């Protein structure tokens, strides 16, 4: 019966009531009112930051090297933010990503250092980092979906728990990874662009496809838009929620590998407060915190905005305290602007 579709012949006797002479806006207007318009706002914000950077720090800021530095700086938090985008789009939140990433660096680096020090084993280390992230996400997902624990509390518990576990396992010491195969891979350039950036680009492209072009993405948006309706339409909401947190854990695992490549060190303090940076980037990017609308392009732009801001401030020798104040202001302004757009969209 699955493929059969019943159709009903049009009623012969129908009331001739007006057939909606609704004004159809021009395609451009439609596009601008939608995601393109919101993304344009982010692009303008980013352009302004670049202009400020160029004006205050000149060549030093505008060099290709510095641009790559900005993107490389954005890539780790960017990958985490992309996982977070899915969770938030579905109406959830994952506070544990930073400490799960820390835990994954610890477990993976211990494996590399102690158990399998051969040069070919670094693929094993990568797999272990991914598995640790996914396992933590699986626990989050099951507790949230089947234990009916609020996502905020369940992932807060994981934040604390994973950090503690990482400290226990590492005995609060830092493991140095000196596997040359691994380091030469993560530090390589490909067409002049560092591998870390390529990872970010690939993850973002795959995520864009997943969110916008697959059944997985459609389910994610449906659950965030109206969980009850999704359930009553026959979607397996609980199972999908588990998948979403596993996905978020997976991106934390990928970020852990990138972090190991960049710092060569596995330590329990990696990723502290990354969850807040990720949430800020996602929300500034235009994904609704209450769920139902998500944008990967927006998240990428959000991450780049914060990373550029940090770079501009650093180039001008301003302290991190000043940076944090500016970040706070940007978050509030972005959310206020979003609300204005949202209310305008509804009234029109």
């Amino acid at each position: 019966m699955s493929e059969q579709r019943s159709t009903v012949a049009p009623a012969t006797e129908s009331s001739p009531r007006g057939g909606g002479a609704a004004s159809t806006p021009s395609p451009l207007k439609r596009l601008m009112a939608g995601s393109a318009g919101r993304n344009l706002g982010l692009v303008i914000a980013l352009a302004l930051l670049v202009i400020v950077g160029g004006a205050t720090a000149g060549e030093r800021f505008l060099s290709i090297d510095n641009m790559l530095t900005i993107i490389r700086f954005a890539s780790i938090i960017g990958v985490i933010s992309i996982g977070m985008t899915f969770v938030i789009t579905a109406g959830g939140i994952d506070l544990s990503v930073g400490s799960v990433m820390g835990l994954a660096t610890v477990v993976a680096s211990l494996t590399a250092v102690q158990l399998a020090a051969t040069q070919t084993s670094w693929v094993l280390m990568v797999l272990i980092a991914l598995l640790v992230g996914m396992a933590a996400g699986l626990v989050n997902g099951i507790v949230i979906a089947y234990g009916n624990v609020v996502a905020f509390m369940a992932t807060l518990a994981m934040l604390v728990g994973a950090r503690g576990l990482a400290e226990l396992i590492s005995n609060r010491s830092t493991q140095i990874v000196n596997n040359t195969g691994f380091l030469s891979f993560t530090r390589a350039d490909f067409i002049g662009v560092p591998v870390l950036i390529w990872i970010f680009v690939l993850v973002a492209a795959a995520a864009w496809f997943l969110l916008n072009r697959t059944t997985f993405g459609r389910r994610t948006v449906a659950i965030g838009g109206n969980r009850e309706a999704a359930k009553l339409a026959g979607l397996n909401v609980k199972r999908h929620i588990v998948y979403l947190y596993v996905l978020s854990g997976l991106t934390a695992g990928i970020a852990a590998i990138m972090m190991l490549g960049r710092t060569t060190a596995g330590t329990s303090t990696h990723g502290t407060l990354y969850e807040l940076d990720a949430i800020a980037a996602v929300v500034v990017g235009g994904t609704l915190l209450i769920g139902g609308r998500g944008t990967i392009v927006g998240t990428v732009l959000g991450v780049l905005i914060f990373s550029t801001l940090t770079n501009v401030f650093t180039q001008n020798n301003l302290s991190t305290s000043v940076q944090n104040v500016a970040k706070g202001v940007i978050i509030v302004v972005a959310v206020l602007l979003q609300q204005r757009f949202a209310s305008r969209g509804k009234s029109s």
Partner: protein
Amino acid sequence: MIEDDHSPSLLDVRQITKSFAGVAALRGVDLTVRAGEVHCVLGQNGAGKSTLIKTLSGVHQPDGGTIHWQGEPTTIASPVAALGLGIATMYQELDVVDGLTVAENIFLGHENARGGVLRVAGSNRLAGELMTRLGHGSISPKTEVGTLSAANKQIVSMARALSHDTKLIIMDEPSAVLDSEEVKNLFRVVRELTASGIAVIYISHRLEEIRQIGDRITVIKDGRSTASGLAVSATPTAELIRLMTGRDVANVFPARVPVAADSPVVLQVEDLGLRGEFSGVDFTVRAGEIVGLAGLVGSGRSEILETVYGARKASTGRVSVSGTALRAGSVDSAVAAGIGLSPEERKSQGLLLDEPVFKNITLSTFGRFAVGGVLNDRRERDAAVEQIAALELRPDDPDRITRTLSGGNQQKILLARWLVHGTRVLLLDEPTRGVDVGARAEIYALIRRLAAAGNAIVIVSSEIEEVLGLADRVLVIGDGRVLATKDSTDIDEHGVLDLVMKGSAA
């Protein structure tokens, strides 16, 4: 026509007529409004409600008939003359100026000024008093109106009406722009106005609103008043529908098609129970049959439907589709077996309001149009468009945001969803809640056609007439039990209520 004259009429309209370029818009309307009442004017779109309002507010002059105001024959020559008499009108399209403040809007056209100099402080104070009187003292008179919600703009519009010495306020479909919480607030304000002696003419086509707020009703059909001054509480819904549509309820509901004797049982419910809600529910539905659950709010009727669907986990009994038992508490298993539910709360349980229509239609089936998890937008949209045409969804734009559709069309989306899926059993909970009367007949016809296409249908409605008019068989539910099962032609509304009352007393 009911005429009991304890209170003198404020407005008395007799047989007014109006034509535009030879086309008669009003062919003879009677309307009598008393001080302090909410008088509802009911009619389908195009019946002549708007022309009547514009005649009373001085925009149009009638071609014939008489208007008496406070007992005196009157002509209402212009909108200013109407305001001078004490007749204020709130139009459906909010007629406030966004760029002005609340106070400036309220006194627009009769500014508080001396020698051309505005007395701003005085206006603000008076505006504040009016807003307070309407229960919205928290809105500052200095607020720019463009920043207010639709509901609050309406309050400003009402305050403007009151800023004149108003005795009658005409409200043209005021609820059209409001959500249910805002409608409640509107009703509270209306009650306060009428308590102070002001009369309200309330235009709507939503029967449930009229039941809540109206004192008397005048029904207009094809430019004529088919009934004038009926008491709301004494007029059954069926009578109103007949007056509005000219069809008997028997005609509003589609003709029953006898279910073939050899038609197979599709849905079988045995000894179904949910702890604390209901128990021992047994019934079967055959292909092509419509079974109704009738009962009062809280009788357990919606819970039974949700348990059959697996959205609640049954504590006893079982549900089978064509002989195969479903897993208790599993919506997936019900949907896979070909059951579809149209839930009670369409907006909170059924639809993604901010998504386009086509994605709502394919919410249960989008996976079918995907290859290896990759969506195929074109095939998906084609399937939705096919149903949009078949169900005559208006407007017929698959990309339209669902929130902007009327209740009747949103209901059609839910039915379309299951048509795309291909169901054998349809569970319809309050399929016409929030659907205007004209569109109801369409939904009824659609449900009947779904049955004729071989679906087994179970319908729940708080309107007993609807259940009796639509269903072949009726289960009377009270206190979580099935009190009786009857052919719907063997029982009437009184019979159902009698059973319910006896059942609860026992």
